[in-house]
């Protein structure tokens, strides 16, 4: 294959990564933005989404699209419920103290990972895509499902953005983010907003995982890479900035796809991680964020 088409293929693969990454990172960013909680267990919610998607599609059987659609609805709901319980039982009691919550979410990470290993097993298991249509480009055929992942992700991102900016729920969330004490004084149930935001963040990760699982298989350690990449995206985009998160996700996803197609993936990760650490050191508000209040 010539260089041009090769680059196009790399870019397409990168866009699929970006699409999933944007959703996952948006969840992390929301939780950080509104609650000021760094959720280290975020990657495990992603993994749970994928594992549940496998469980649901296997249980339903029949046409793959049927099981997949069911998984797309049910898996995020279950993950959201788990996150809600974790928030009520642990994070709330810690008063959202940043350091204590990091330690607690590390604890959750280990618990979820180990439970997945115990009940799901160490194997990587595939989920059948809902449809297997190949789009024929002049140089190579490309999976239609992958393109639909990009579309679905874009749709969900727009929907989230609309909810945040155009609805009462979004207004309440933004008010809590801006100043939780004043919000409380105005009768906003801040506790319930926090619970909802934590669940929503986990659900976004789970949806992203369900979308990607027909492409990459479900595995109990699959949460680690998305967690690191989401951190990178959220930091580059500016902690708590929605638009920055999406832009950064596209940037990181594309460069990850292109760099790891032409260079060693380990080297790509080393460079990316180092660059991001430097961004955090020298420009803590992120490349697109504004200075914090």
């Amino acid at each position, binding site marked *: 294959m010539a260089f041009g088409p090769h680059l196009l293929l790399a870019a397409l693969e990168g866009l699929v990564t970006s699409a999933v990454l944007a959703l996952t990172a948006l969840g992390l960013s929301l939780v950080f933005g509104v609650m*000021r909680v*760094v959720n280290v267990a975020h990657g495990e919610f992603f993994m749970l989404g994928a594992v549940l998607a496998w469980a649901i599609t296997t249980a339903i059987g029949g046409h793959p699209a049927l099981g997949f659609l069911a998984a797309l609805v049910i898996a995020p709901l279950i993950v959201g419920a788990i996150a809600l319980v974790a928030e009520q039982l*642990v994070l709330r*009691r*810690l008063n959202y103290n*940043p*350091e*204590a919550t*990091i*330690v*607690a979410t*590390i*604890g*959750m*990470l*280990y*618990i979820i*990972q*180990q*439970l997945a*290993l*115990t009940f799901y097993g160490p194997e990587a298991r595939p989920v059948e895509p809902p449809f297997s249509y190949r789009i024929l480009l002049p140089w190579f055929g490309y999976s239609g499902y992958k393109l639909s992942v990009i579309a679905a992700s874009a749709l969900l991102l727009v929907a989230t953005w609309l909810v945040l900016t155009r609805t009462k729920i979004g207004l309440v969330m933004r008010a809590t983010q801006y100043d939780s004490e004043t919000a409380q004084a105005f009768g906003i149930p801040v506790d319930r907003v926090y619970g909802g935001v934590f669940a929503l963040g986990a659900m976004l990760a789970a949806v992203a995982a369900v979308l990607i699982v027909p492409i990459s298989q479900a595995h109990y350690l699959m949460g680690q890479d998305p967690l*690191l990449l989401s*951190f990178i995206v959220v*930091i580059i985009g500016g902690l708590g900035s929605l638009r920055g998160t999406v832009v950064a996700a596209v940037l990181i996803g594309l460069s990850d796809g292109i760099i790891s197609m032409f260079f*060693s993936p*380990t*080297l790509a*990760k*080393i460079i990316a*991680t*180092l660059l*991001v*650490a*430097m961004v*955090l*050191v*020298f420009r*803590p508000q992120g490349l697109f964020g504004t200075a914090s209040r």
Partner: protein
Amino acid sequence: MSEASPARAYASHLGVMALLFVLSFLLPEYYHGLLARIMVLAVFAMGYNILFGYVGLLSLGHAMFFGAGLYGAGLAVIQLGWSVPSAFLGGIGCGAVLALAIGLLALRTTGVAFMIVTMMFAQVFYLVILYFATWTGGDQGMVVPQPARVLTFGATALDLTNPTVRYMTALALFSLVLLITLAIVRSRYGRVLVAIRENEERTKMLGYDTFSNKLAAVVVSGAICAASGAAYALLFGYVGSSFASVQYSILPLLWVLLGGAATTLGPLIGTLFMYYVIDITSGYTSAYLLIVGIALILLVLFFPKGILGSIRQRWLGWLP
């Protein structure tokens, strides 16, 4: 941290060392080996405690300092054929230099950003080890051959693979670091560190250069963790990338939290306790990470001061 009783503080620490010395002759073989390992890892926890307990900086990347010592000493012995003492010092040197570099960068951030930055630098360190697999052995690691692990003083040769020698070497390192920690904590410098933890702005206002004090603490902490890593490589003969992974950044945090942050003996108690809990439960289940996870959550929820911290608060106020 009372002023009154330096004698009592030193006596209690010497007592712990004496107890560990006596235990060497009493313990059955399996626990003898386990305790030697625990003492080396407790040194790691003590290094972590300097930064986390006394300065209040929560790092999520201390595995890189342990790894720097581990690989610094291991590679020096395996690839360069250095002798044991120079490899040990080389490992500590690697850790101190790395800590200086990381400290200069990471201390520009505070709070949550500090945790993430340290975690990312540690991740880079880990990936670099995997990337240079030709020299480091990648994720399979390397074994330090037995003939290279002999300590010679003139005519006498100490074989570090001998269980008794190994135990005594671990105990010597542990005791030395414990006394160093105690001396630091009781010194003027130690008080400045605690003052930074309690109120950095006010400490600055009183005329202390908080940045260089914090940087010194990062270097001391990194060097102690590297000493632990170097000792691990030389005493137990295995150098592996898993020791540089995120998990080994979390474990010292867990040990220190469990034993009691900002207590000199807390790291030992935390390491000891966690090791035995895992040892006992592994008889029933292989899911020891589950125990780690549950322990972390229960600790931050109900015992944020840890075992020794709670004891100090309720009964033994003089405990350093």
